[in-house]
């Protein structure tokens, strides 16, 4: 019962932390679009927080550059569990057009475990909300 209540509460209030690891900022702008009046993810309890210690979900954009790889790991370790990782954009999922770049150290799932992939360059806000719904289905 107690466990059930915890999971239920977690599903209803996801705090997301946004981490950009060498992205072109387009995915980041689209993430912010989700908070605007048109999409307003706060009605589902999703809030963007400033510190990874408060977060339940790590939104990672970008290819995961060599310089950033260790920091991604560090931030993932600092996130209080249960925590989830969402890779947003083609770069984070596969490396995209930067897959042969000399700073390429990703994609993200070679650095930290990823729960949900949201492809697109950039993904639409609708696609991100669909991805979050997919994540909610996976939380048990």
């Amino acid at each position, binding site marked *: 019962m107690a466990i059930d209540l*915890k999971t239920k*509460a977690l599903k209803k*209030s996801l705090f997301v932390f946004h981490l950009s690891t060498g992205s072109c900022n387009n995915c980041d702008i689209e993430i912010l679009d989700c908070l605007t009046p048109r999409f*307003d993810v*706060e009605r589902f*309890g999703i809030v963007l927080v*400033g510190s990874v*210690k*408060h977060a339940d979900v790590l939104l990672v954009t970008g290819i995961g550059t060599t310089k950033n790889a260790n920091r991604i790991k560090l931030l993932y370790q600092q996130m209080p569990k249960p925590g989830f990782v969402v890779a947003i954009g083609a770069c984070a999922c596969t490396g995209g057009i930067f897959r042969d770049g000399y700073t390429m150290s990703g994609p993200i799932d070679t650095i930290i475990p990823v729960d949900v992939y949201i492809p697109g360059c950039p993904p639409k806000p609708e696609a991100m909300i669909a991805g979050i719904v997919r994540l909610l289905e996976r939380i048990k």
Partner: protein
Amino acid sequence: MEILRYFSLIIASFFIFSLVGIMSGWLDRKITARLQWRVGPPWWQNFADFVKLVGKETVIPYEANQAMFLLSPIIGIIAVTVTGALLLSSIFFNPVKWDLFIFIYLLLIPSVVIFLAGSSSGNVLASVGAGRELRLLLSYELPFIIALLVPVIKSGSVQIYKIADYQITNGVNIGYISGFIAFVVALLAFQGKLGYVPFDVSEAETEIAAGTFIEYSGFPLALLKLMKWILLSVGISFFVIYFMGGFRNPLTGILKYLAVLILIILIKNTNPRLRTDQILKFSWGWLTMFGMLAVLFALLGY
């Protein structure tokens, strides 16, 4: 028997003020969302946040002072609960002598707790936030106390229940010029106590990433959030009792509570964040000046 009564009073205070505070916090989020043409979260959102945070892992930073890090949220909860109990007892049960001064001291503790929480967590941004919180405390405390003097001068007593009784025979404090100015000054100073937007330098999400709370997670973070919610409800109840005639008639009492809450939310949503030096200038300049003016009017009898 006496101890049992005090104990039940504190338990009652905790439940009443935390429930009211959580709902006030929800109203804050909802009205903020509506002002920005958003829909906003459903009514149980803050309960869900609280339960979720209780259920999460607590990460204690390696460089933190562990005892202080974990103890400060508990001190904060105890302080605001006792503040609420004092308010309840001064209205319904046996009033404590000099309770206004105890009340002012107890209202100071949440800010000190935020300072302790920030400085014990071993983070650079948290220590920046802690320093700012202390400067904020210094700046708003002066006009707050000066504004609270006005009803004391009017009723000639430092007991909250006597001030509340005085308003039955002589009209509510906010109806006078002096009371009105004092109310506005005290409300703006209270905004600083809450850490709401014109005075949110110590938290400043976009600037120093949640500032003093940056290293907190799980249960301690839930307690800190609860402390802020209880502080919100206790403070507004105090304003209603102290300036607006209290909850003698429950319906108008709730309306007064909502009016003050919505005023706070509107101030929060229509102002930019001030810098620390601007806050100091504003509160030691304008707010203190208007507070003095209110005291002068009160002495003259307006």
